[in-house]
């Protein structure tokens, strides 16, 4: 703790942070551009100037940049000193010398950090009489606009894109007031997190191109707190709607999950909500019917021998409503047979083994990582971005030894150069994280599992060994084991990506073996008290962080309700247990092969489908009930870290569509 005096007011704050962050946390208005909470301080824009005083007797003080000033006990500074105010207003005036006066037609207008800071500093009259420097813009692909004339050269874009997200194809070119932020040549930005540039940029250089297609001002949008439906990470989002059209999605800060950033799939993958393929009208055997008639028909169907098939992309509430309609014994989760097995195995491990599911933020803190069989960039992109940050922990530690605070971003990178915490990656094909991995293992799922078992055995002789492992692989296993064993916060990432039970088991074995190495650590209060899965497990083991990546936004939640697959449904119908099936937002053709589904549907007498977008299953429905997408309904999703998160409707479903849970609940 530190006691500091700002404008005569005494505050108790954390020592060691930078003064800008401290001021902002205290709710004090101090303008800034180059600083970003996730990117740290570099001292480029010179906007956050305050006057700092040496001691009590110092009456003159000197101008310092708050973002570069560490908070120490006794620090005294004035944000409101006339010199500081004048300097800050002048810096804004500098930034505005070449900035176009195009706010009325700029898409950033109304949510522009530069506008806000300009108003905050009080710069109103322009004194510069010269010509403005101009730039040529680039085509950056379908997601982002590029309008370089608006650039104020805060360097956030390149620092985010290159340093944080690991992109290579965006850089700063040229010098002086001609610095240019773009690609070497026109082309689609390669990084899968490029969309964050629209939010990282404090003005309108990078803006959301998908939003441009149906642009409205920020204040004309209606927002609702939402959760991304595209993978199991559970990033928090703010979808914005106007006149029944979903216009865009922006990040909604959650300190333990997505922080400040989304992946491009989550940000830009909303077109289906406004899509032509949406189902807008209840229909019975292809003929439109009223809601009342549809509800009555569903009730009639459900009174017989009826099975309900749930959905890993529908909320707990919708699945529950369907289960309530058909009865628990007739409710099937509706995963594919393989997926159901994998998720069941994961749940079993999570329930009984000394394992802790880390949050995305905690993933960023890991200092040694083993990824077994997952291409996280594809299956849980935001988590892959977190793994990229985890790799930096070694650099942060090195910097700390040199007494360089972690937030002094450029200095940390210069001191530590390319130092990386160990990340080991075993996957069947190349992944985007290979470039930051200490070692990469390429192999079939079985080979990856064997590597995992070997690592576990290296960590604990009680874990079964892999006798016939090739020498090179055995050495790699030893290296991985040594890195995990010496780490303070080791992490294992695995999941259903390879469709391999062995990989899931191998990951669990590594975690258990790691846990066994630290029996002396006392168990935290939330340690599992279930019976140990194998001999030698003691109650004092500290749980080890293990992330299991599962495919869909509510896979884990659904699996907690029921574990039976579409294969089980097929068998039940085959045996004559039911002749009527109600499917909730689930395209069966994605869960089993087409022959099996066709055969199954041939046996079903009555098929009711609750769905928001046409698919092969919906097209065969006797009764088709239109539902809302994530943007038009509300509910709860359980993320891969076991976090139940509620999302809310930003607009009512168009036409005769209703909330997915409302149909079975009616």
């Amino acid at each position: 703790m530190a006691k500091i005096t700002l404008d005569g007011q005494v505050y108790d704050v954390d020592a060691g942070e930078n003064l800008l962050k401290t001021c902002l946390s205290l709710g004090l208005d101090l303008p800034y551009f180059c600083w970003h909470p996730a990117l740290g301080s570099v001292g480029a824009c010179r906007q956050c100037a305050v006057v700092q005083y040496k001691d009590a007797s110092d009456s003159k003080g000197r101008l310092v940049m708050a973002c570069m000033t560490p908070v120490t006990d006794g620090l005294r500074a004035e944000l409101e000193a006339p010199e500081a105010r004048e300097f800050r207003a002048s810096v804004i005036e500098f930034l505005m010398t070449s900035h176009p006066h195009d706010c009325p037609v700029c898409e950033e207008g109304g949510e522009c950090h530069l506008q806000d800071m300009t108003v905050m500093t009080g710069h109103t009259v322009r004194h510069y009489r010269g010509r403005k420097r101009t730039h040529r813009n680039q085509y950056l692909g379908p997601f982002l606009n590029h309008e370089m004339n608006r650039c104020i050269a805060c360097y956030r874009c390149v620092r985010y894109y290159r340093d944080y997200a690991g992109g290579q194809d965006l850089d700063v070119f040229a010098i002086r007031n001609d610095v240019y932020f773009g690609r070497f040549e026109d082309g689609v930005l390669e990084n899968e997190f490029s969309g964050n540039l629209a939010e990282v940029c404090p003005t309108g250089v990078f803006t959301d191109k998908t939003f441009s297609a149906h642009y409205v001002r920020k204040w004309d949008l209606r927002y609702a707190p939402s959760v991304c439906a595209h993978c199991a990470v559970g990033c928090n989002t703010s979808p914005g709607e106007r006149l029944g059209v979903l216009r865009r999605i922006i990040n909604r800060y959650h300190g333990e999950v997505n922080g400040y950033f989304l992946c491009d799939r989550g940000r830009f993958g909303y077109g289906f909500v406004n899509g032509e393929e949406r189902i807008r009208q209840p229909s019975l055997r292809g003929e439109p019917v009223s809601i009342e008639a549809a509800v009555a028909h569903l009730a009639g169907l459900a009174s017989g021998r009826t099975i309900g098939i749930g959905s890993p992309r529908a909320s707990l509430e919708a699945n529950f409503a369907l289960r309530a309609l058909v009865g628990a014994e007739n409710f099937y989760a509706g995963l594919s047979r393989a997926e159901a097995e994998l998720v069941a195995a994961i749940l079993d491990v999570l329930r009984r083994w000394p394992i802790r599911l880390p949050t995305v933020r905690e993933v960023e803190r890991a200092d040694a990582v083993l990824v077994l069989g997952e291409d996280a960039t594809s299956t849980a992109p935001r988590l892959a971005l977190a793994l990229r940050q985890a790799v930096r922990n070694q650099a942060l530690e090195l910097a700390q030894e040199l007494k360089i605070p972690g937030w002094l971003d450029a200095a940390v990178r210069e001191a530590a150069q390319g130092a990386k915490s160990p990340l080991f990656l075993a996957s069947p094909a190349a992944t985007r994280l290979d470039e930051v991995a200490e070692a990469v293992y390429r192999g079939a799922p079985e080979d990856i599992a064997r590597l995992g078992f070997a690592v576990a055995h290296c960590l604990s002789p009680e874990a079964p060994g892999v006798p016939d492992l090739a020498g090179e692989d055995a050495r790699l296993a030893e290296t991985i084991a040594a890195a995990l064993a010496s780490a303070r916060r080791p992490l294992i990432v695995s999941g259903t990506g390879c469709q391999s039970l062995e990989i899931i088991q191998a990951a669990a074995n590594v975690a258990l073996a790691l846990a066994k190495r630290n029996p002396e650590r006392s168990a935290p209060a939330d340690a599992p008290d279930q019976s140990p899965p194998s001999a030698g497990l003691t109650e004092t083991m500290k749980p080890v962080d293990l992330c299991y990546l599962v495919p869909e936004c509510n896979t884990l939640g659904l699996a907690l309700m029921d574990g039976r697959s579409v294969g089980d449904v097929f068998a039940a119908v085959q045996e004559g247990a039911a002749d009527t099936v109600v499917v909730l937002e689930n395209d069966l053709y994605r869960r089993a092969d087409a022959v099996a589904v066709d055969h199954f549907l041939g046996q079903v007498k009555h098929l009711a489908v609750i769905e928001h977008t046409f698919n092969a299953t919906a097209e065969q429905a006797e009764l088709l009930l239109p539902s809302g997408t994530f943007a038009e309904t509300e509910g709860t999703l359980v993320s891969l870290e076991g976090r139940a998160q509620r999302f809310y409707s930003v607009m009512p479903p168009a036409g005769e569509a209703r909330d997915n849970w409302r149909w079975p609940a009616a």
Partner: protein
Amino acid sequence: MDKPLTRNIKPDLAPVTLAEYRRSGGYEGLKKAVTAMAPAEAVATVKEANLRGRGGAGFPTGVKWSLVPQAAGQKYVVVNADEMEPGTFKDRLLMEGDPHQLIEGIAIAAYAIGADTAYIFLRGEYTLAARRLEQALQEARDASLLGRNILGAEFHLDIHLHTSAGRYICGEETALLNSLEGKRANPRTKPPYPQTSGLWGRPTVVNNVETVCNVPHILREGADWYRGLSRSQDAGTKLFGVSGRVKKPGLWELPMGTPIRELIEDCAGGMQEGYTLRGFLPGGASTDFLLPEHLDLAMDFDSLQRAGSRLGTGTMIVLDDATCPVRIVLNLERFFTQESCGWCTPCRDGLPWVVEILEGILAGRGRPEDLDRLEKLAWLMGPGHTFCALAPGAAEPLQSALKYFREDFERYLPVSPALSLRGEEHRVPLLEGERRAAGG
């Protein structure tokens, strides 16, 4: 008068060979250091000699060396030979004329801080210096003065010559390090200083060429001798240059603290016939103007600082009465504007504004408030307000010209704004020297 730095330099400026250098006592300082002194003693000697950096900032060299952590591990010596400031040409003489002096100095510095690798970061346009340094380095390697077990001691060193791709900002020591690493030549945050986190993140000492060239002599002759060379509290000799309308522009090695008058009137032979001294930039393009009334000041760090300017690189630019100070300032500011790295706002966006105003003033578009604006811009680009010293350096000639030569700015301002609105030409009053040249 002893002139250690230039005593070997030949009148025809041909390079001193290794054999010649050794005959004059060359590499004796290194020998003394590596055979008879612990590294810490070498540091202490340089500290005691009170050698201050000759690149412009004047930081005590021994203190800089002593800030390098003692712990073993990779360390570097980097020589800043990116001499690129307008009007500065002192390091060039030392590198072209006596390259072994620099190499010996580097070796001693490396021994003192425990480095086994050194780099000379050379201005790209200095092709002759590059050739001569390469040649001298090869001579030194062939004579086992570089390489393994130098002079029989447990001391190894190799020196790499790196020629710059050509940016003024590379002369800023941390931008130099980034450039050497193959990165964009932007300055780095300080702290951490290069002594703890420098080249490739390792402890590094960055010294100017002239600074390093003093080191062999200090080691050989001792700290007392070195301090005794000076005429002021700043020790040693210094290369002083004079350019402008003097009779004999040039470069001389003189005791630190030599009065400015001796430099201009004795060494440079005074002003050319028909020209009068109006002022001078004592330490090069990025120092404040001084006036004839300052002629009796001593050329050393503290005297010039007290007078409101800086010793800088010690290479003076003289302003005569037929040269417009506004045009001089514009010329300098154009240079600094062009060389801004574009990192921090006051430099990147302030300098072009200065140029815009000065061009406007010279084109007859000036307004009275422009001078206040220039003053404010100079303040905004002042020390501590920017990320590195480039813009504060650029602000120095500007702010001092506004202070001392305000009437020269004002003479371009249209007397009445209505005049310029009507498109009538404003007649700019002539300078004293211009009038004379025009025969009036």
